């Protein structure tokens, strides 16, 4: 695998009233496993179904119902672990996390506290070309999602929708390696990108498909290094956990607010209480949800309805062999193989479908030029219209055809843009359009020469000026191209104008 060199970003420093502070952030990402069926029941996971349509007897926790593990969800977790370069535990086990809530029919969530399926791994979080933070993953475990309680449909009643109950989640737990709000958001972006490459999570944050709990603490300059050297958390500040965030923007705002709140508290001689907080985006602040003392006692114990989950190395190896090329490798390959900038490579590899589109365009063509066209013309246009690559009116083959016409000097770059416009709005075969509409550029020097002679003869004053100042030759070039309806090959015109003017 190819690696690009990177340097580590500086941690975010926030200046308090008295001194400077650094942030220390760890995250728990709840990623809904992309799977047709729930983790322990055969019920569907389709989003947006009628309330309580996707509910089996198991999901509703009817008496005597038992969970049966969905092998596909296990494979998805293993796939994710492998992509994060993580240890896969051939032995893992499920535990019950007990608490009462109406959208938790069993009265417990089946999770993996003691023996998670995936152990330590890592994610390289890109901040800017050449700058990235390696964030360590502590673990990934599988667990059931809860349902949804709806409190605003009736003044005196609450309603419960169990469609989401029992849907598989991967909880991806990071080490406290994230050092600022931007890094936190970039971490989520990168994880989401990897999950989408793998097809293990749709990453649709609006649907609650990917949610983040963020642990934030602040420390004085130098303390983090002591922690990093010893692993001793007492060098760090007390953390607060901000629950259930589903937007990159809110994650950044919440961390920033929370860090400043803690700094103000500490500089005021107060102490930070370990607690769970919620971010209120309307007011731009975090609010206490429950303190450590009020924290629930979840009474975890091994789920007696499920045997320990034992998987075989050969099965893991098969999954590993089927992993797609991952974002870091793809980006490095694009840089090295196509000679593009890291920035362009990052743009093209943000989504695997985009990268595939680009590669189809670049196949057998000039990579850098393909990258320019895909990024500037195509993505620019798609973004403007709010379309995804799958909805692009111009296919990779069509765009490739445009590039071929440029390469063979059949059209100029300028004409190519007109051609792209035609393809976008009307479709069609690029070569045929060029022929049918007479867009082929004139490379016949005889024809261009005649046009040049004509313009020179008609503009003696301009000729004088151009001879005195060769930069003004461009005016002649423009006139010639205009006279040929834009079809004259600019390079040929340039050469002829220079020659005729004696420059």
């Amino acid at each position, binding site marked *: 695998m190819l690696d690009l060199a990177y340097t580590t970003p500086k941690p975010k420093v926030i200046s308090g009233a008295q001194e400077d502070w650094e942030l220390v952030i760890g995250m728990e990402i709840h990623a809904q496993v992309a799977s047709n069926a729930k983790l322990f029941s055969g019920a569907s996971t389709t989003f947006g179904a009628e309330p309580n349509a996707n509910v089996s*007897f198991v999901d509703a926790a*009817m008496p005597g119902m*038992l969970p*049966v*593990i969905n092998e596909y969800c296990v494979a998805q977790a293993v796939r994710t672990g492998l992509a994060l370069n993580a240890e896969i535990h051939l032995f893992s086990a499920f535990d*019950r996390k007990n608490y*009462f809530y109406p959208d938790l029919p069993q*009265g*417990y969530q089946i999770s993996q506290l003691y023996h998670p399926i995936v152990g330590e791994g890592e994610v390289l979080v890109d901040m800017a070309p050449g700058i990235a933070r390696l964030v360590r993953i502590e673990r990934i475990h599988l667990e059931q999602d809860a349902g949804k309680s709806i409190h605003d449909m009736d003044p005196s009643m609450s309603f419960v929708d169990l469609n989401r109950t029992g849907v598989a989640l991967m909880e991806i737990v990071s080490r406290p390696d994230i050092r600022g709000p931007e890094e936190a958001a970039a971490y989520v972006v990168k994880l989401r990108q990897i999950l989408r490459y793998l097809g293990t999570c749709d990453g649709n944050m609006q649907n609650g498909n990917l949610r983040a709990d963020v642990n934030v603490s602040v420390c004085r300059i130098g303390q983090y290094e002591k922690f990093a050297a010893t692993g001793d958390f007492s060098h760090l500040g007390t953390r607060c956990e901000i629950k259930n965030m589903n937007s990159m923007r809110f994650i950044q705002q919440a961390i920033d607010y929370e860090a400043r709140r803690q700094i103000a508290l500490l500089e005021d001689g107060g102490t930070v209480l370990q607690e769970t907080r919620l971010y209120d985006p309307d007011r731009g602040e975090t609010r206490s949800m429950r303190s450590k003392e009020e924290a629930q006692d979840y*009474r975890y114990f091994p789920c007696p309805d499920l045997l320990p989950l034992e998987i075989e190395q050969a099965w893991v190896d098969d999954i590993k062999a089927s992993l797609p090329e991952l974002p870091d490798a793809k980006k490095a390959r694009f840089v090295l193989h196509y000679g593009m900038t890291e920035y362009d490579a990052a743009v093209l590899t943000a989504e695997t479908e985009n990268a595939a589109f680009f590669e189809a365009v670049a196949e057998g063509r000039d990579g850098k030029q393909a990258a320019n066209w895909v990024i500037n013309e195509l993505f620019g246009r798609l973004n403007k219209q709010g379309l995804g690559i799958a909805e692009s009116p111009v296919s990779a083959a069509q765009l490739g055809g445009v590039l071929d016409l440029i390469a063979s000097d059949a059209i100029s770059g300028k004409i190519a843009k007109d051609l792209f416009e035609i393809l976008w709005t009307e479709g069609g075969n690029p070569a045929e359009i060029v022929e049918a509409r007479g867009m082929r550029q004139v490379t016949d020097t005889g024809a261009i020469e005649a046009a040049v002679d004509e313009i020179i003869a008609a503009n003696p004053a301009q000729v004088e000026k151009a001879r005195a100042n060769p930069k003004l030759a461009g005016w002649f070039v423009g006139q010639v191209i205009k006279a040929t309806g834009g079809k004259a090959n600019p390079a040929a015109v340039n050469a002829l104008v220079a020659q005729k003017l004696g420059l």
Partner: protein
Amino acid sequence: MSSANTLTIAQARDALRARTLSAAELTEACLTAASDAKALNAFVHDTPEIAQAQAAAADARLASGDAPALCGIPLGIKDLFCTRGVPSQAASNILAGFKPEYESTVTQQLFDAGAVMLGKLNMDEFAMGSSNETSAYGNAISPWRRAGSDAALTPGGSSGGSAAAVAADLCLGATGTDTGGSIRQPAAFTGIVGLKPTYGRCSRWGIVAFASSLDQAGPMGKSVRDVAIMMGAMAGHDPKDSTSADLPVPDFEAALTGDIRGRKIGLPREYRMEGMPAEIERLWADGADMLRDAGAEIVDISLPHTKYALPAYYVIAPAEASSNLARYDGVRYGHRAALVPGDGITQMYEKTRAEGFGKEVQRRIMIGTYVLSAGFYDAYYRRAQRVRSLIKRDFDMAFADGIDAILTPATPSSAFGLGEMVDADPVAMYLNDVFTVTVNLAGLPGISVPTGVDAQGLPLGLQLIGRPWEEGDLLNHAFVLERAANFAAKPARWW
């Protein structure tokens, strides 16, 4: 054939196949016996329409020559089993009115084998109890009485209704479940045979869970052969229960050869409890003699961690129960307390569960919640699990030493009077399980066989414990014991 209900399953099967008895007649005899026995409070939901329809279907199968072993055999079903469209409330008020839309795997398999369901049987609430006195339906009453007394006795628990119904010939056999002795103790108290299979042998799917790692369904019948026949239909792998074993189901009845020559039977010295009644001691010694006379070798063995079994059991079982019973919250089914304005979800939970669960269930939920709570988990639950491993290892080592089966008393006493234990320390009641819980903790098969009566004429049973998955072999040992003991006492009818 007015007394068809007194037949064994084997006898009835032969008569049905010989067409000298119809399933309809047999079912009618049982329904009549059951309706005449309301005083026992064994059946708590009667399903005569289902029984008659199943009997008619069985007669049609019998006529067509398709007559599996249980075809046309009327059974009672413990209320812990979910039966489609029929009240299934684990003898608890919290499941008042609950009629599942699904059929438990075990009852489905029994019905597929042609069995007829007469109704649902009384039990301790959520199978928590040893006397059937915690039932929301009221006590089940044993058909047995002490000589010269008309005091009502317990049929044992938690499968008390099953035991009473079989002992009183209200049905030919019954399903039970056994978490700490709930099949074997009531079988011993009522002079019938009860088998707790190896954990994982019968599917738990559709059986209301008490303690998932210990619960196991099993048959209760009038003879070892009957229990073997029922086992054949109840056992088997179920992909819907992850703890169900994917093993073939042998012909258990064919295992009853009566030949145990050369087999080694262990007598664990730790089961010789201090203060054990002399008649239990004698029963045990007599049982050992019977097996020796049949050609087995009797060996003293040690199961050194036995004394820790009961405390470990009363940590693990309540811990699992506290979690398993969390689902009874009044949100989706069963009882929901009437609320007053201002009550929120917490009040709904508290009132519903306070009204719906009886005292013993509440006690165990609280014990279980306590032992799992932060700071106590290691001292209780984790330590109990370690004890459990040691108990299992005791048995593993005995079997590795060549022991084929282990013989112990089934209960520390004969049946006690209903109400006698009401004011006792709950632990005194828990002591009823002292000989049986080890088997659940180790996941082994155990069977209770009636082998004698005490001075008051009440039945007493012995327990045989077998190797895992060797129910056939265990049944054969029990068969030998049964033949030798020739237990023939029946309760005198007073109801």
